[in-house]
Each structure stands twice: as C-alpha cells, then as structure tokens.
C-alpha cells in the first residue's frame, strides 16, 4: 500500500479523497494555486504544495509542476480526482514515467476512450450500441451535409472532451456555423484539441450511466446504474440510483455492455460508461466512457455499501477486487443534488462572493461532500460546485422526502445557489414519476422566478439590523464583544 498520495485536485473531491487516504492510513499532500491558499482542501491535508497562479493552466492543469510536487513531497502515487488532468492520457503516462502510481486507468485506456471519435468506432466494433452520427469530419461543408443526413436537431461535441464543454445542440442550419466555431474554441481551450463529432440529438433521452470497476488482474464488475437526467446546460444537477426507469433485465444488459466496453480497452480502476436511454424504445446507446471517478459517485457508494475511492486506491496498489458480480447488490435508494453557486433566474450564471453563512444539513441518511466553509470566498476561477448533498433511504419516495428536507435545512448566504430550484424540481410530478429527460429542465420546467421577499423576510432583515448590531448582520466596523454570548446583542430584549 502507498505511504503518501498527492491529490492533483482541489475542492470537495480533494477532501473526499483525503478522507479515504486517512482511513487507509496514507498521508496526503494537497496542491494549491494562489487563489486557494486558504482553501479547505489545503487545511485538510497533511502537507500542501504551492503550484502556481490562480488560472487553471498555471496550476491545476500544469502537469510538470504537479509531478514535481509529487516528487518533492516524496509521494508514491497521484490521485487526479475528476476534471482538470484526470482524463489526460499524457499526464497519466508522465506520472508513471516519474515512477509514481497514477490512481486511475492506464494512459492507453484513457487515450482510447478520451477520443470520442475513436472510442465510438471501437464500441461499434465491440457490439456496444452507439448513437447514429459521424466522426472525423473536416470543414463546415462536411458538417452541414452530415447534419442534413442525420436530421436536425443535432448535437456537436468535442472529440476529446466531456462534461458539457465544447458541446452544442443545433436546431437549424442557420445556427450550425457559429455553434461549430464556439465548440471548437471551447474544445481547444478545455482539452487542447478542437476536433468535433456530430450526432443525432435525442430529444426525450435519459442519461443513464453504469459504474464499472476493473482490477489489474483482469477482473471486471459493474456497480449498477446512476440516472443523471436532471441537467441544465448539459450539466448534471440531480443524480440517483437505482434509475426509476430500468427493469432488472435492462439493468443486466446495460451492466454487461458497460463491462464489455471496459474490457475492450483493457480497463482497470473506476470508470463510468455513459448511455443515452430512450424510454419509448427501451433502447440504450453508448455515449462515452469517463475514465475517472465521477462527481456523482456517492450515490453508488450509498446503494452498494462500497467506498469507491478506497477501491480506487487499493486497485492502484495492485489489490484484487474481492467481489464477484453476483455478490453485489443495490440497497435502498440514493439521490445526489449538486449545490452550485449559480443563479437559476439568470440562466444559471455563476455567482461569486464570500460565504456569509454556510450551514450544511445533517441527520440520518444525509451526506454532504463539500470544500467550503463559512467565511470562504467563492471565486470565478473554478467550478462553482459548493457541495454535493446526498441522501439514502429505503425507497425512492422516502429519499425524495429526505432530500427536500435536507435542501430546506441547507443555509447558504453570500452567493446565489440553485437550492430552491432543485427543491422545486423534486416537487414536480414529472420527477416523482421518473419522467425527467435531459432536456426537461429547459423545455418543460421552464423559467425560474426568484421568490419575492414576503412580510416575514422584511421583518427579519430589518430586525437583524437592530438585533445584530456589530454582529454577523453588519460588515461595518462596530463594537462586537463576546461572540459566544448570544444575548449580549439583544440586551434586555431577551425573553
């Protein structure tokens, strides 16, 4: 087993990985950019290494500096988390060349799956169903012809990427040119590769993915599905397991297809095979494979009882995955809500600022993975994910209720969040009935109107200025005294 692991990431996922390391008795090394000097993940680590300026290219995307940090800290392995360099085959190769273990699949597997064009061709060969579309096109005219053949709407996406960046839905030919240009630029910026592919855009599609695990001894299992259809701007916001749509037969077929996909690229460590599922046809199509830990891995952890990060580390250290497929089961129902610093009333534009109050909920069946605390600054440099709120309960119905209460108890002041928005989604009949497809949020749920302050809110705001003079409710300098005497401020108003 490793002695020390460098976590080449930040925020909640860095902390989540460090927790697993601690439990395995492994020391942790955080890395931080200039903007993250005081970030929670730096405080949580055993050691911390400065890696550069705030801009990701200068720090979290700088492979050379990261590998140097791993060597300087005498780490023996690197965990890339998700995002940043986690699906960068050259980084994985460079880590291994430096005599460090990359906690993830081989560079070859990453490369094979990272290229959306090549992977689609490989999947077609391996008998995994894929979405109708074209790869390897060059120039606007080729795209125009292909789009016409497929029929609008079409989806343009980066050959190298994932996570919605470099991705555009194009409804008519008139939008095609600018969409290609923007997608190319985003793809180049995000992945250093501007190649695109074009596919039929399935309007009523559900996003269902299968968690797979392979070890370095050729064993493969899947850990069942995650339904991730609640999305805005192609970004997941609510995920769950099991999917309310799958029959045991479909689950079995998709699991087998996912394992086949993994086997086709000699995969090891944790990976996720994403499928588009059409509920009308009861058919599924290979979308892509994410060769890393997913943001939404906790829902799988809760229903299977396995700690995915523990197993990532153990497998990277050469251990065999100890369970056979028939020993794995789903227990109860888990839902994850991604709490983002973004404003649903302005098209989900990110919101930045200092967290004046950040109080995550707790209680039975509630888990919060977060990289923030009260007083922290949410900057524009990085992903606006504040926390992942995950619940586990006996049934889907109970899990939804638990999540609504947990969202209710989650207090965030200082930045605008999507908390109210997600609770409203959970309260729709469509969600309750499992009918939410990937475009539902935009086409069915519609505009989001911010709740207007009512009488009680006005009273509370005005009263706070009277009661908390010098306390939390006032940023100006004044005579705060003992913050541990809650009554000092209210004087004789105490009841």
């Amino acid at each position, binding site marked *: 087993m490793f002695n020390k692991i460098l976590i080449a990431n930040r925020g909640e996922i860095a902390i989540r990985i460090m927790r697993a390391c601690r439990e395995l008795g492994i020391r942790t090394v955080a890395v931080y950019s200039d903007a993250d000097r005081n970030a929670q993940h730096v405080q949580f680590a055993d050691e911390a290494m400065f890696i550069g300026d705030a801009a*990701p290219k200068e720090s979290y995307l700088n492979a050379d500096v990261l590998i140097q940090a791993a060597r300087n800290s005498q780490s023996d392995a690197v965990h890339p988390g998700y995002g940043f360099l986690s699906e960068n085959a050259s980084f994985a190769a460079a880590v291994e060349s430096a005599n460090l273990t990359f906690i993830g699949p081989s560079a070859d597997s990453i490369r094979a799956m990272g290229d959306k064009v090549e992977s689609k061709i490989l999947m077609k060969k391996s008998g995994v169903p894929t979405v109708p579309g074209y790869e390897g096109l060059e120039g606007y005219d080729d795209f125009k012809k292909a789009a016409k053949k497929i029929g609008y709407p079409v989806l343009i996406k980066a050959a190298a990427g994932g996570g919605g*960046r470099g991705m555009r839905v194009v409804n008519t030919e008139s939008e095609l040119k*600018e969409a290609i240009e*923007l997608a190319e*630029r985003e793809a180049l*910026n*995000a992945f250093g590769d501007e190649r695109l592919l074009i596919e039929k855009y399935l309007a009523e599609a559900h996003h269902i993915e299968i968690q797979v695990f392979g070890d370095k001894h050729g064993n493969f299992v899947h850990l069942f599905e995650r339904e991730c259809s609640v999305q805005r701007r192609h970004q997941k916001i609510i995920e769950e397991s099991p999917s309310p749509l799958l029959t045991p037969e479909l689950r079995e077929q998709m699991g087998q297809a996912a394992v086949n996909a993994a086997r086709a690229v000699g995969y090891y460590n944790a990976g996720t095979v994403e499928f588009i599922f059409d509920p009308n046809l009861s058919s599924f199509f290979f979308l892509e494979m994410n060769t890393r830990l997913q943001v939404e891995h906790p829902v799988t952890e809760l229903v299977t009882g396995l700690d995915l990060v523990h197993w990532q580390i153990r497998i990277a250290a050469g251990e065999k995955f100890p369970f056979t497929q028939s020993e794995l089961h789903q227990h109860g129902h888990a839902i994850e809500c991604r709490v983002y610093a973004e404003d649903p009333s*302005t098209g989900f*534009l*990110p919101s*930045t*600022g*200092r967290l*004046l*109050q950040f*109080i995550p909920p707790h209680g039975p069946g509630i888990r919060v993975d977060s990289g923030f605390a009260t007083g922290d600054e949410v*900057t*524009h*440099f*990085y*992903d*606006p994910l504040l926390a992942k709120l995950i619940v586990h309960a006996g049934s889907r119905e109970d899990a939804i209720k638990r999540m609504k209460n947990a*969202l209710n*108890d989650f*207090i965030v*002041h*200082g930045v605008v*969040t999507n*908390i*109210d928005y997600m*609770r409203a989604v959970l309260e729709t009949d469509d969600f309750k009935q499992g009918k939410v497809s990937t475009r539902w949020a935009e086409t069915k749920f519609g505009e989001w109107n*911010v*709740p*207007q*302050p*009512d*009488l*009680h*809110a*006005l*009273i*509370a*705001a*005005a*009263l*706070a*200025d*009277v*009661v*908390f003079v010098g*306390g*939390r*409710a006032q940023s100006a300098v004044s005579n705060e005294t003992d913050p541990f005497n*809650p009554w000092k*401020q*209210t004087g*004789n*108003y*105490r*009841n």
Partner: protein
Amino acid sequence: MKTTFDTQTIEINPTGENFTAYIDGKNVNIQILRAANGRMDLLIDGQRVTAHVSSDMAKRWVTLNGQTMMLTKTSGAKQGVRHEHAGGLIAPMPGQIRSVSVSVGEAVKKGQTLLTMEAMKMEIRIQALKDGVVKSVSVTQGQTVEREQILVEVE
C-alpha cells in the same frame, strides 16, 4: 428604526421587552425568542418564525422555511439598485475578456455578439440588446473584469 429594502419601508420600534414592526400602515408584534449566530427565532403576531439573516454592505440575505431571499437596503428614494445602464452592457459575472469583436463607431444589430468572456470555464457571449452604433468599448482582450462592470455601450 426605519429601513427601506428595495421599495418597501419598514419601521422597527422597541416596546418594552419586545418590538413592533410598522409596515404598510399596520403594526405587527414581534417577540425575540433567541437571536444568535445570524439566526433569529421569533414570534411574529404569535406565529413562530425562524430566520437566518446575513448582511454584506447593503445586501441582506434572509432564509425562511428553507427559502433564501436577497434584499437590498436603499435610501428609500431609489427603486432598488439598477442593474442596467442605458445602452451599456455589463459583465454578468467576474471573468476574463476572451475576444472583442467590435470597435467604436461600428454599427451593430440586435443579437450580434459584441464580445466574449470566459468565467468558470464557460464562454459567455455579450450580445447587442438593440440595433445601434458602438459608443464605447471599455475593455480589451485578456482583461479581467468584475461583476457589473460596463463592457461596451451601444446607442
């Protein structure tokens, strides 16, 4: 104490151990059960209300029954804080200017992309709200901008 939030004015007065709020010509009785750490437990006309409140300059964040609202303290005369300037396009969030596609004096059409910025890994297009002529361009490529900073003006 009289306070105005956006367009609503409310007056808080102590009455012995409690308070009254005067709003819209009516008096509301308030009893503070507990107030600490940005949280207040109140009885408002006998009804139990728990509110989390934070302040940042003129902004007040209030959470009631799981819903968070933002109020802005004003002098009472203004109709809240204006977020748009006549013909001026402002940065919707902090970020970096990626490209500037127009220059002063250029005629632009409604919906035309004037510049792009990047923030939190997203590319954002700033588009003309109306047909017109570019009056000013206040930013250059690569520049970092703050939220609500004026980027370009069209008239």
